């Protein structure tokens, strides 16, 4: 690090000029003002013109439609919804369905992506080739095609509900999706939940204690056998003592379909599968690039300390690689979320399908609905970016960079 002579403190006026106009000074500042004014004027013209045209053609505008009754049904909803609910409710149903696909998709895409990315770097010839083949095959086929493939070619050929594939007489797989027994809370539920909570808290304490021991006296304590025992044992004891936490409502074939039980619809499975597998191929390449960016010397240093390859990767290579991996990984998360709007092709009721689709054509209020939908996707993306930036900042801090 070189030492530079310290510059004298700037005068207030000069500081202001720098801040507002940059290197171009006051002239630059004036240009910026003009530019902003032109932008505002164009924006105003667009809004005013659209408003006049809507009025002359007597097209309904405004957000009043949000409190009107929707009058149509949706196949999957995380909150209670019937056809007599409002368009606002439809909006939230769609939003939650989009978020559900995005979150589960991101989880599996990251998992598969890391496995495949590490697989490509594996010294094992077969593993490396299989991982490479996966990446090249998946990332070179259009996503819409893959969604339709999973939906029509894989899930579509499952038998109808009357001939569904049954597991233990309680899980049924058919072209209507996977039907599973539905858990219903029973008497022992509270003590069961309490037991899990205690187990988690104790495990956390144990982990803290083990880390302190490691840093202070260099003693390595294996926590996971105790943690596993606690997490399984305590709830088990609780349910033995206070009764079963849940009873199960068994699905039953009635008429065309199963009644009772919970059902995962095939549209959801196809969409989540396709999005995870597709995005995982890109994440795999990002992970590979990130790990290759860590100097080989780090790996060698790890093994010369006597650490195993797995431990070296986990403790030394991956934390350094994460700094490189995170920004493009965020991009992939955003892509996955936005790509989930392809759901409309297979009838999964996501935000785009039920709100910017059905609601739009029933109310005809394109400008309002498209504006809301764009705003929501933007918000989801910004929140995702913010979370990832925060994570990146924490990693940066812990690496002292």
């Amino acid at each position, binding site marked *: 690090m070189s030492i530079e002579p310290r510059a004298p403190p700037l005068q207030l006026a000069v500081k202001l000029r720098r801040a507002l106009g940059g290197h171009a000074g006051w002239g630059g500042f004036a240009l910026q003002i003009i530019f902003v004014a032109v932008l505002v004027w164009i924006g105003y*013209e*667009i*809004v005013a*013109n*659209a408003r*006049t*045209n*809507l009025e*002359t*053609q*007597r*097209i*309904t505008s405004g957000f009043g439609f949000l409190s009107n009754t929707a*009058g*149509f*049904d*949706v*196949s999957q909803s995380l909150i209670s919804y019937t*056809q007599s609910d409002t368009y606002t409710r439809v909006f939230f149903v769609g939003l939650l369905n989009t978020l559900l696909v995005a979150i589960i998709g991101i989880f599996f895409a990251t998992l598969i992506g890391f496995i495949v990315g590490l697989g490509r770097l594996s010294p094992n010839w077969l593993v490396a080739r299989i991982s490479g083949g996966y990446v090249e095959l998946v990332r070179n086929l259009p996503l819409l095609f893959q969604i339709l493939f999973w939906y*029509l070619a894989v899930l*579509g*050929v499952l038998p*109808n509900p009357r001939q569904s594939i049954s597991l233990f007489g309680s899980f049924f797989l058919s*072209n*209507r999706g996977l039907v599973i027994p539905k858990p219903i809370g029973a008497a022992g539920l509270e003590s069961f939940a309490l037991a899990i909570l205690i187990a988690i808290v104790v495990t956390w304490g144990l982990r803290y204690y083990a880390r302190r021991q490691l840093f202070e006296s260099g003693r390595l304590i294996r926590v996971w056998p105790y943690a596993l025992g606690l997490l399984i044992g305590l709830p088990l004891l609780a349910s033995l003592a206070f009764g079963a936490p849940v009873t199960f409502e068994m699905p039953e074939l*009635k*008429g*065309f*379909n199963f*009644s009772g039980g919970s059902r995962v619809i*095939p*549209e959801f499975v196809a969409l989540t599968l396709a999005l995870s597998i597709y995005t995982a191929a890109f994440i795999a390449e990002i992970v590979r690039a990130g790990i290759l960016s860590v100097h080989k010397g780090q790996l060698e240093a790890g093994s010369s300390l006597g650490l195993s390859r797995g431990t070296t990767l986990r403790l030394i290579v991956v934390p350094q690689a994460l700094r490189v991996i995170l920004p493009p990984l965020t991009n992939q998360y955003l892509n996955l979320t936005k790509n989930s*709007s*392809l759901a*409309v*092709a*297979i*009838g999964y*009721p996501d935000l*785009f*399908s*039920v709100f*910017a*689709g*059905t609601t*739009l*054509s*029933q*109310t*005809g*209020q*394109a*400008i309002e609905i*498209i504006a809301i939908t764009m705003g929501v996707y933007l918000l989801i993306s910004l929140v995702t970016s913010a979370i990832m930036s925060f994570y990146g900042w924490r990693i940066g801090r812990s690496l002292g960079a």
Partner: protein
Amino acid sequence: MKRVPLVFTLALAAGLSTQAATAQTLKTVKDRGMVSCGVSQGLPGFSSPDDKGNWTGLDVDICRAVAAAIFNDPTKVKFVPLSAKDRFTALQSGEIDVLSRNTTWTLSRDTSLGANFTGVTYYDGQGFLVKKSLKVNSALELNSASVCVQTGTTTEQNLADYFKGNNMKYEVIAFASADETVKAYESGRCDVYTTDVSGLYAERLKLANPADHAVLPEVISKEPLGPMVRHGDDQWFDLVKWVLFAMVDAEELGVTQKNVDEMAKSDKPELKRAFGTDGNLGEQLGLTKDWVIRIVKAVGNYGEAFDRNVGAGSKLGIARGLNQLWNKGGIQYAPPIR
């Protein structure tokens, strides 16, 4: 496909619809030399392209008739295929001049969309298509069924109303295009496919084995299908409206594609008025005196267009039913040309 409405919306927002507001559709169409006509993405009998890329169908013939009346040439039409959910935005933004796409006339569509229905080309109703192997004979036996439906249609609401009204449970799976909907029905994802009865007959033809599927007897809604034009241009509204009326009146007067030249020489006063040998009714619409002759020569009268596209002379073989003329037991009725 999903980017289309966004483009329309931006066009709408950016005020590119000034053309619509100035209310000179006929002049714009004449300057362009083409009628821009919004049709379906392929519904046999109503609007679908054949293997040479020529559009045919009842809805298509309405646009061809409009082009014939203006240019004396039924080929001067640009067909814009639209999904159910994009169709109104395309009309609002000025992308198309006429929307002739099996669209149901309802109050809310007539008022809040900034568009008007010009008439009824086909009196339809919503029905159900099921596999014969299910051994279902009535829609009332469909409790707990899965139903495939195309999104952005009145169908979705009728369906919800019908099942709720009869205290039946069902699962709805809504797709963006008719093709995707039918594919899901055929793959067994749904027990039932629902849309307008005419559409059921048309889509059944696309199935691998049409004879394995049956249309249930219940018709659960009124679906008068007709063309739409934008608000704010009454001349254009009148023109499109009277093109359809002319086709219906021509059938009533017994004027056909074959005998039109002969009939044009007739002395009958109502024929003379219609053919423009007496008075200037065509010019009042902004057309020429021989506008009816042009229309009938190009696409025939209403009955001929019906038979050729969806009726006895077509693969669909749908009976005239409600669409028969008013004096032959149906409800097709047009005001007189006078």
